[in-house]
């Protein structure tokens, strides 16, 4: 509830190193996660969410969990980690934490793709 009332790390990072957007308005949830990477670690992370209370709380929680972690560690964060940290989620809301974990993975993937391009180009 606290993460819904006072979500952490709301916003976007204009010069982000990686961005992950998942979900669609049809099912009612859209999440975007922005990361800034330094020495292979997540240096800064922000999110934007259109969705229900659980969607907002899970996005806030995953940014807290991922902050300061290495990229490999961040990729290992599962939807259960997010739900557990929040004190559990009703099963109908589990897809929200799934979305949060997916958005983070997409952001890391996006960062790595950009790096490759950079090295190749």
């Amino acid at each position, binding site marked *: 509830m606290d993460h*819904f*009332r006072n*979500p952490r790390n*709301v916003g976007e990072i204009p010069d982000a190193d990686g961005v992950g*957007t998942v979900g669609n*308005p*049809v*099912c*009612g*949830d*859209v*999440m*975007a996660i922005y990361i800034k990477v330094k020495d292979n670690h997540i240096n800064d992370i922000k999110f*934007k*969410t*259109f*969705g*229900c*209370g659980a*969607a*907002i709380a899970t996005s806030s929680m995953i940014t807290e969990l991922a902050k300061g972690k290495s990229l490999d560690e961040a990729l290992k964060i599962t939807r259960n980690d997010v739900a557990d940290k929040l004190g559990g989620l009703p099963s*109908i809301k589990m*897809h929200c934490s799934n979305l949060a974990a997916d958005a983070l993975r997409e952001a890391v993937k996006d960062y790595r793709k950009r790096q490759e391009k950079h090295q190749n180009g």
Partner: protein
Amino acid sequence: MKKVYFDHTAGMPVDPQVFEAMNPYFNHFYSNPSSLHSSAQEVRRGLQNAREKVSELIGAKNGEEIFFTSCATESNNWAIRGVASRNRDRGKHIITTTIEHMSVMNVCKYLIKQGYKVSFLPVDNYGLVDLEALQKELADDTILVSVMYANGEIGTIEPVKEISEVVHDKGVCLHVDATAAAGQVPIDVVKEGIDLLTLSSNDMYGPKGAGALYVKSGTRLEPLIFGGGQERGFRSGSENLPGIVGMGRAAVIAKARMRKERLRLTKLRDTFINGLLETISYSFLNGHPTKRLPNNVAVRFSFVEGESMLLNLDIAGVAASSGSACTAKTLEPSHVLRAIGLKHEEAHGSLLFTLGSQNSEEDVGYVLDLLPDIVKRLRVMSPLTPKEVKESV
């Protein structure tokens, strides 16, 4: 903390006068009205009186046309299955709309499995039934048309009299679900040409667990519940006397207060709607602006989601409802909001405030002060909000 209740369509308090009227029927008048002894007589009188009072609320000829049930869902199930079953030798076609309550929708879906054909009439953007489409759908094998009097989710009141004329021109039976409308707006089953009408007790400050079906005399209908032959053989089961007496009392109060309360709520409703639409950009009304239930404020806000608005309102002491199904058991938005042409994300951004007898101007003002900031905060957080909107809010 201030508490404001704006969810009357979902549940209403029982009027203290209703509660008082019910009270003796728990411990004092507990006899079975079917019994022969004299203590049953008093109970029979209470039952008959309730029947008369409910019939007076809807302009029925007499109490004999009122049958008590357990709730509006049962009345809807009975009306549709009862007519379908009794008339299957005449035809197997039923017409209803895309914005009915699930207790109509799901009975129709069941009947499709039983070999009936059901047409779901589309509605316009306000939720009004298209009379021409209705006329075209009516066929020689049509046995029933079921249309709601008013929709509780978007507030729109249907043109029942016009619908009835079209339906009766073809000699077809008309069922009207008046759950959301009864007690709020005047209904006259005779003048409006209604053959079957569903009523709910709790939707007019009566107790839960009671409902009624008006059946115009001569209507071909089979019972839904078989047993000891109560309700003149049409609805068996020992009568729920406290509930029935409460519903009767609720009908009396609703009738007496209707004219004044209707004006008061309509004014409050329009202050509420206009206030929201004026102070919040990209906000829209769901349903018809004037052909509308006096207590219904259904609005939607672009770029934000209903449940997160509801939770924020709840934190501030306001009970409201959303059209978003995230709150229900599926993730699909409400079929009603989809039927009036809203996109998924528009439906998800809908809120429903339903006003009641205890709500004041102060309650409305409280939400008008509160909601713009909530929407603003969620819009800043939403990836769907365009940049120029973010800067303007």
